[in-house]
């Protein structure tokens, strides 16, 4: 498991943790039932406060990504496949939005961009 915290980012540290764990779950790098590091252990490894780590885990639990069992630890929750797909679609949509914005800045037409996409798809 890899979590990297940037001190110069404007994104709060708890969000950096929760979004990185979330993306590992969405990508399937963390699978259902897998145990996450303990809150206090992770705080030590990342050299951040326990409260910050706890907040990240609370957030993930609230959104249904992980489950915490008193005295045992936190585990990756079973994910609803439909929901996962929808969330992944949402991430793709957000990234496409960024791309569209950049295209507008450069003044690229829809046809030009769609051509680029077609080529990229074929390469994969």
């Amino acid at each position, binding site marked *: 498991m890899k979590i990297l915290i940037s001190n110069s980012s404007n994104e709060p*540290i708890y969000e950096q943790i929760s979004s990185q764990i979330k993306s590992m779950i969405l990508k399937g790098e963390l699978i259902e039932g897998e145990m996450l590091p303990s809150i206090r252990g992770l705080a030590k490894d990342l050299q951040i406060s326990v409260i*910050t780590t706890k*907040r990240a885990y609370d957030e993930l639990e609230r959104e249904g990504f992980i489950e915490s069992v008193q005295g045992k630890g936190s585990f990756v929750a079973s994910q609803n496949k439909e929901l996962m797909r929808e969330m992944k679609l949402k991430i793709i949509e957000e990234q496409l939005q960024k791309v569209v914005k950049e295209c507008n800045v450069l003044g690229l037409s829809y046809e030009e961009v769609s051509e680029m996409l077609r080529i990229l798809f074929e390469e994969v």
Partner: protein
Amino acid sequence: MDYILEVNNLRKEFKKFALKDISFKLEPGYIMGFIGPNGAGKSTTIKLIMNLLKLDGGEIKVFGLDHKKHEKEIKDRIGFVYDENYYYEDLTIKQMKNIVASFYSKWDDATFNDYIEQFDLDPKSKIKTLSKGMKMKFSLAVALSHNADLIIMDEPTSGLDPVFRREILDILYNVIQDETKSIFFSTHITTDLEKIADYITFINKGSIVFSETKDEVLENYSVVKGGIDLLDRDIRKEFIGLKETNVGFEALTNNKDKVKRLFGEEVLIERATLEDIMFYTVRG
């Protein structure tokens, strides 16, 4: 919620200085940093908690017990690190350890020896031959070797080099892997706290400015930078502290949204560090 340390409306008056209604609480399992400039009342507060000074008003509870009535029981469970040397200068580390160990019901020689080795201290060295950093290491080893539930430290990292300061942070992380233990430490080196502290209590001129989670503190405060042409008398009053130079101003605010409304894109709004918060609050 039971608190491991609870200070309520603490008062202490001296001729030229007074602690006024100091209150804060610390839960088990967390680290609280106690910050403030020199002379703000940090050491006085800690001495009052340890009952080394008599309070003039208010109450202090440690492990839910009155700090005077249960002094002996409480001190058995506190690991205390002073910023001054309270040991006998002519004794060796080992001799001094034997004296101190007899005060504690749960003294653990093996843990102590581990720390002494880890800290590169020679048990045969006399206390007076130790450098400031080595004395601090010795104090720390003592504080951590009797299964204390609360570690209280007065400026533990001042006088230590950055390498050992980082090592101390790791040791403190190890202590709070146990959810029942807490650490309370004063410092004016705020970068240490920026990492590890769960709560920050800020004292200035004998009064508490705030006692909150560090995340709240860092979210509430921001540093604003902009051109001096933006400043007028009313605007200046909006800031907690302000520094003006020929090329612009830098200020501290706890109302980021208002600053955004007032100036929009004309200013830079950045995250404040604890040092920024301390500097601008103290200086104004």
